[in-house]
């Protein structure tokens, strides 16, 4: 077998895999979104953009779009600040650094659903360990602990917190890589030039990390915007749909509600949004690299 053929054969599984897992569902979703498919319905009628029109008019969809944005932006802010601090702290050698790095990586390594179920118990209205601790230190009175997942704003904060917990390791690792790529000379030159810790941090280190921060944020936005696991397990979109994000809404509408076409329309709605975000971020990253 010639090298060319062998190469193609070796490559084929990867292409098939991507086609089967990403390509086919994507095309299918697109076809569904412009049709009238429901679970258990037979036949397919093209309806054009009807589904999108109906989705856009639905209050539940608008609410979810808003929630998705809050969820994504909130998570990214926490992750960005947290991972920058962590990366800067973990760059310097200290005793036990390896262990700390390992512990921080754990949430990323563990299956999302497992972690989320753990958090569900931590935030449970009756058995919450947080409330137990708050009561123990007399910050709140017994049986008056906050309903972490039961109150709209607290629920949103909770899902944001858990999603941040989950994404933090990934972002930290990316930033740590970016940070170690800064030659040692440069902060040293800044030190000799008279800059203290904060000036070096904000005028040298962080600006130099910007391109890689962009990558981390881009990935973070895509991960958060398309993730429904945390919301699904913790709140199922509740209370009163106040934590419903677009992916979970799509799932509830399309799979549980049986309206495949409308579910597909909701999912497809994410695509141009994410493409726009990706384009913007890559442009910013490119500019800060060239300029």
């Amino acid at each position: 077998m010639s090298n060319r053929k062998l190469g193609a054969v070796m490559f084929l599984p990867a292409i098939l895999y991507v086609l089967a897992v990403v390509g086919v569902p994507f095309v299918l979703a697109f076809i569904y979104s412009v049709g009238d498919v429901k679970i258990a319905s037979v036949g397919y009628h093209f309806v054009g953009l009807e589904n999108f029109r109906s989705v856009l008019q639905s209050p539940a969809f608008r609410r979810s779009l808003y929630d998705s944005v809050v969820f994504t932006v909130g998570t990214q802010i926490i992750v960005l600040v947290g991972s920058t601090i962590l990366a800067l702290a973990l760059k310097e050698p200290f005793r036990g650094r390896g262990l700390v790095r390992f512990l921080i990586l754990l949430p990323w390594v563990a299956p999302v659903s497992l972690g989320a179920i753990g958090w569900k118990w931590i935030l449970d209205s009756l058995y919450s360990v947080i409330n137990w601790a708050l009561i123990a230190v007399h910050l709140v009175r017994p049986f008056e602990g906050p309903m972490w997942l039961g109150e709209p704003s607290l629920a949103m904060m909770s899902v944001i917190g858990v999603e941040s917990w989950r994404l933090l390791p990934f972002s930290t690792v990316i930033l740590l890589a970016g940070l170690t790529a800064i030659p040692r000379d440069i902060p040293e030159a800044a030190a000799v030039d008279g800059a203290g810790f904060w000036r070096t941090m904000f005028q040298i280190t962080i600006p130099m990390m910007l391109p890689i921060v962009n990558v981390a944020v881009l990935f973070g936005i895509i991960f958060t915007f398309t993730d429904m696991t945390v919301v699904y397990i913790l709140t199922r979109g509740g209370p009163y749909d106040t934590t419903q994000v677009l992916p979970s809404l799509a799932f509830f509408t399309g799979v549980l509600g049986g309206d495949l076409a409308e579910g597909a329309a909701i999912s497809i709605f994410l695509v141009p949004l994410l493409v726009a975000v990706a384009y913007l971020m890559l442009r910013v990253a490119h500019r800060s690299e060239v300029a």
Partner: protein
Amino acid sequence: MAIVETRNLTKVFKEGQPGAVNNVSLQTREGEFLVFLGPSGSGKTTLLRMIAGLEQPTAGEILIGGAVVNHLPPRERRIAMVFQSYALYPHLTVFKNIAFPLKAQKVKKELHQQKVDWAASLLGIGKLLNRKPRELSGGERQRVALARAIVREPTVFLLDEPLSNLDAKLRAAAREELEEFQKRIGTTTIYVTHDQVEAMAMGDRVVVLHQGIVRQIGTPKEVYDDPADTFVATFLGSPPMNLLEAKDVIVGFRPERFLPSELLTPGGEQAAKNFQPQSVLVADVKDPLKRIPLRFRVEIVEYLGAERILYGYLAGTRFEKKLVYSRIPSSVLVNYEANSVHDFAVPESELRFFDPATEKRIAPKAFQWQ
């Protein structure tokens, strides 16, 4: 302007391992250009970094302008440093790079423009101020790094191999420029290099370092002509000093002093024919009695344009197995071929004696060639 002094300065990176810098005591002079010269791993950069405050000494003291600065962070030492990589801030324009020390030292903002212009014009980079470092050539980057270093008028300049990233031609030009520049601003400068040509050409004095120990401090002429030990003797000069080891003494002589004997004989007809009077050897020729004749069996001839390097052996001596070098200027027209034997000689005054045990320089003593 200030004097830099180190007292028994020592740096041990890992306990139990030999120190990177061991007990170094030295002192610059006012406005001096002092060069730290040594092979890689000799501790020269570590020494410089300790003076800069980028590395904490394990023991000993650093004084700048008479005050102990061990406990001071780099920014309070009033030093400026140029790094081997130049360490320009890649995201800032040249102007902002040069202005950074001013900003960091809280110099009044109104003065920034004027001071940056001054530094930039001194180095001829006024036209580059709006560029980013990545848009500059190696030579330009080096100038920006220098401008950034002088802009706040430091008391001491620390330069860590600033020319090693330039190509050979540019390096020679930059060397000259840097030297002239230092003379003009007159700031005490410590310059680290592994390049002996740079050290000899630029240094007022040279500190030769090896394994973290100062082997010799002296003017370029002193370290070259009167090396303190065999390390200095062989580290300086290319090819290095010939060293012949006997039981109780090592004798050394420079390849350029080991020459065809007719060159060292006054009035010899051959010499008259082959020897051009502007040669440096005139002084030796005055005293022909003090030369030591040696038979030189040439093995390899290396033609380098301005000179030839002969590799061979001293026939009929007890050092017959030791490879020795001779360096003959091209103005000598005699033809040397591989595997031929010639009468060579070395003036006795050019012999250097070392103790085989300590490798240190010792007074001349009797020596058996046969």
